[in-house]
């Protein structure tokens, strides 16, 4: 759980870096973005890594659900008034934030990732020629500039993801036995900064298209 989580944490940073090329951060950002998409779609090392990544997702999700079910069973009959203990808010509801992110992930797969893989057709209205990964930039632009609701769902998902990460970042270290009076406050701070960077960083793209 923790290892797969840490792996996904690293992956998110890579994903975020690539995403930022959607924005006009340099002159030929759209070409760079499409080139990366093309590289990602064709390079065999990346393709192999994709399988590892999917395994990471699956382990994290399936294991998380199994743990949660075991934990519900472990309680047995519940309390009438339960959990009034003061703890960090999100840590109590981590499974729900996880499930929300899972729904978002499925949506995200269908409207971007599977299109890149060629499993799903790009929306006809977007008029994207084949192969899609060459024109991935246009698909992203089409997606975010035509449907406000869509952008809002993405932004909400990133906020939930940020909250999820804020608890789980330090949690992964604790699970791996890395809790130390000297370093843990630092790890917690890094976790919070990381979560904010992820939530804001990913949201910038849909926000940019809302306001342009």
């Amino acid at each position, binding site marked *: 759980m923790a290892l797969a989580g840490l792996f996904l944490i690293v992956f998110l940073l890579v994903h975020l870096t690539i995403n930022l090329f959607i924005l006009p951060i340099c002159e030929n950002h759209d070409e760079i973005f499409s080139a990366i998409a093309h590289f990602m779609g064709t390079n065999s090392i990346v393709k192999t890594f994709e399988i590892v990544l999917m395994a990471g997702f699956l382990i994290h999700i399936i294991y998380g659900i199994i*743990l949660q079910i075991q934990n519900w069973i472990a309680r047995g009959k519940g309390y009438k008034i339960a959990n009034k203990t003061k703890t960090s808010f999100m840590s109590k509801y981590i499974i729900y934030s996880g499930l929300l992110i899972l729904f978002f992930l499925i949506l995200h797969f269908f409207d971007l990732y599977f299109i890149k893989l060629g499993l799903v057709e790009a929306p006809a209205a977007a008029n994207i020629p084949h192969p899609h990964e060459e024109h991935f930039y246009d698909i992203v632009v089409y997606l975010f500039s035509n449907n406000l609701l869509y952008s809002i769902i993405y932004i909400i998902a990133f906020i939930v993801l940020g909250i999820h990460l804020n608890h789980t970042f330090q949690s992964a270290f604790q699970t791996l036995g890395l809790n130390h009076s000297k370093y843990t406050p630092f790890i917690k701070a890094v976790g919070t900064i990381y979560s904010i960077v992820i939530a804001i960083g990913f949201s910038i793209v849909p926000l940019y298209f809302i306001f342009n």
Partner: protein
Amino acid sequence: MKIKLKIWRQKNAKAKGKFVNYTLDDVSPEMSFLEMLDALNSKLILQDDEPVAFEHDCREGICGCCGLYINGRPHGPGEKTTTCELHMRSFKDGQTIVIEPWRAKAFPVIKDLIADRNAFDKIIIAGGFVSVNAGSAPEANSILIKKKNADEAFDSAACIGCGACVAACKNASAMLFISAKISQLTLLNQGKVEAMERVQAMVAKMDELGFGNCTNTYACEAECPKGIKVTNIARMNREFIAAKVS
């Protein structure tokens, strides 16, 4: 002060059980929580009713018997206190107090507010001891122990095994308890020898008995009447991983 009580009543382990309401009119704020329950029971006995069964022994916070889940918190309001150390001044006049037994599959309720915490003993029997020859007193004095380790071992040994960690945890996980027992042994030279076997045996027993998994909510640390720290859980995880890969 006047107190309204909503108490879990259950005849025996098999019975279904339900909440029953009681009212006490003349509760003094100086009374301890258990004295308040004593007062209720005296009243019930005079009325020819069955008194409420609850566990208690030392009534001074050292035996770990008296755990009750009060208004959504193990050992009720207040920091680092057991139920027997709780006083009625912590409640308001006219307040309703909901009293439940510990809830965990591994701690079955046997009567009213008494949960069977035998599972803890089973975990200790699985590995919570030192079986190497630890020597006699003079030999023990010749074994040098870092002050920091001695302090930490002592802090972990303060665990009274009340089960509040399991009761507080949303996953009914016993990891704070087990990690405290592991720490008090593993931090000292005599206990270190069997550290790898111990952690595996105790964790296996914990899983077998149906306790939940730790998801690092840290409710256990917040509710522990003895202030046992979750750094112990990290130490246990560390030892567990080391034992598994070595």
